[in-house]
């Protein structure tokens, strides 16, 4: 069971990303959704409609925060204003854990607004783990780091991506937001076997899983979150659930967003895998009890 200290021993099932085109549907129909993931930065503001909408959502649903600009791997320190606003939002939402990406994106106070890959070096391990620890201490809730899709690899790298991820989370003592679509995208772009990645992650640290679609170009794949999940990604998800047990799962769909029902139905396909391993776990317990 991946209900662990990295997701505050949550029983969250399958959620979807909270997106503006779906507000009307959500407010008028109040559909049953296990939880919503919000992009923290969209709500790190002082007032107005976005916060009012968030408060309406919080009255009805569980919300988990996901960030896109903490840049744990950046060499320059995070903006104190960013951290202050993030903590204010954490108090507002009551998010049981919070995630952001294992990447960098700002340097010397200038922001690229991209999730740029890190070189897999020991220097980057130390720097990133220290930053994750500091942020986790400041926010006083569990933090999970997400593996990103990448299109470039560095000549300086001293280990594989999964070895790098494992070193960072061990040293930071934090959770993992395992994005199986990102693993697939990177495996094509960097020519490795994605199952090696899934098999190497420390299952007990997986706080949450992301699933998503992507766009395939002639010579590379882009992580665009604008399509349904493809079968090879479901296979990675299947293996991840087999290893981690029932884990909070979130479908990301950020561009060319279809109707609420279409997104929600796509997300709920994950239940097939969650139930499959819940049943086999139950059978195992029953068999052990019978002996």
């Amino acid at each position, binding site marked *: 069971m991946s209900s662990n200290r990295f997701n505050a021993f949550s029983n969250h099932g399958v959620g979807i990303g909270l997106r503006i085109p779906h507000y009307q549907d959500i407010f008028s129909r109040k559909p049953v959704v296990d939880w919503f993931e919000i992009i923290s*930065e969209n709500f*790190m*503001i*002082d*007032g*107005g*409609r*976005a*916060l*009012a909408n968030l408060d309406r959502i919080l009255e009805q649903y569980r919300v988990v925060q996901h960030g896109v*600009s903490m840049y744990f*791997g*950046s*060499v320059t320190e*995070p*903006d104190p*204003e*960013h951290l202050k606003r993030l903590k204010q939002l954490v108090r507002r939402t009551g998010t049981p854990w919070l995630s952001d990406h294992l990447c*960098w994106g*700002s*340097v*010397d*106070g*200038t*922001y*690229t*607004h*991209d999730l*740029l890959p*890190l*070189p897999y*070096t020991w*220097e*980057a391990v130390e*720097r990133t783990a220290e930053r994750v620890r500091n942020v986790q201490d400041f926010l006083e809730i569990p933090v999970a780091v997400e593996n990103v899709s990448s*299109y*470039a*690899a*560095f*000549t*300086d*790298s*001293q280990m594989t991506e999964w070895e790098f991820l494992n070193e960072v989370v061990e040293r930071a003592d934090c959770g993992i937001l395992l994005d199986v679509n990102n693993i697939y995208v990177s495996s094509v*772009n*960097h*020519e490795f076997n994605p199952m090696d990645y899934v098999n190497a992650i420390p299952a007990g640290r997986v706080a949450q899983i992301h699933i998503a679609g992507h766009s395939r170009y002639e*010579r*590379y794949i*882009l992580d665009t979150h604008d399509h349904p999940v493809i079968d090879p990604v479901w296979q990675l998800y299947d293996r991840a659930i087999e290893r981690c047990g029932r884990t909070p799962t979130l479908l990301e769909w950020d561009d*060319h967003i279809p109707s609420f029902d279409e997104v929600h139905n796509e997300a709920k396909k994950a239940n097939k895998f969650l139930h499959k391993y819940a049943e086999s776990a139950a059978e195992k317990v029953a068999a052990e009890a019978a002996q």
Partner: protein
Amino acid sequence: MTVPSMSLADLQRTMASAVMQPLTAGENMRAKSRDGRPMRKVAASFIAPNSNLTPFERLEIYNRQYWYRVLSALAEDFPGLRAVVGSRKFHALSVAYLDAHPNRSFTLRNLGSHLAQWLAANPKYAGRRHALAVDVARIEWAFVETFDSAEDTPLTAEQIATLDAGSKLALQPHLQLIPLSYPADELVLNLHQRDKKQTSEAGVASEEDEEPPIALPHLRKKPTWLASHRVDFSVYYLRISREEFSTLAAIRQGIGLADALATGFVGSRIPAERRAAQVQQWFANWAELGWICTPPLESIIKD
């Protein structure tokens, strides 16, 4: 084990510089870096190839993604400016602005915070509609600020009646004061309606389509004093007098009430005997609109 050829800090500075360098007209990465080195060599100094892509091509993916993302975010916040100058000029001015002012904030919301000021200082990017373009940019940035700034509890009319000459006040945080050369607020409202309609008809924003500057109704230059504020989560514009505008601006600077009013009436043609009634009317309006608040505690303690 390999020893890294550059520090993490150097790698991040090198990559950020390459990623944030403007693309060519054909939307490719430039052949030379900002310091004149061949970009192929720069890319190969820290990025490994794979069987499909060279280091240059891999870096180019990030270079394109950066520009697509920031240009699209800026276009979303300044649809009126884009319509006034046309899509081609808007693209050029956006690239020049973002090259001069890469975002120093963790949020894309603040990307356009310097645009109006930058455009005022760089008239060549707006062409013959420069002054109007600056006005439109000011109004559109004020919209961003008004839309999601804080809303403090305003003073009631009864509380306002107790103020004296030395009272120091604060303005409602979402109230923005915008000095304009043209009465451009209605134009901006119309342009936003037009943009909303096009977006909903197309299903997506249309910043990728090439559009010439739109035909505009004749607007005569006229100093205009605009306030933007929020009611029930919607942004409204209100034209106010120069005196009212200057008084509000002085209050926002933390100047005591009597001095703020004196500042507001400098050079005013309003006869002295009508000013008291005028001030009373302003305060009645401000109380109704919720524009006057108490200053933050720390500013009172500092004084």
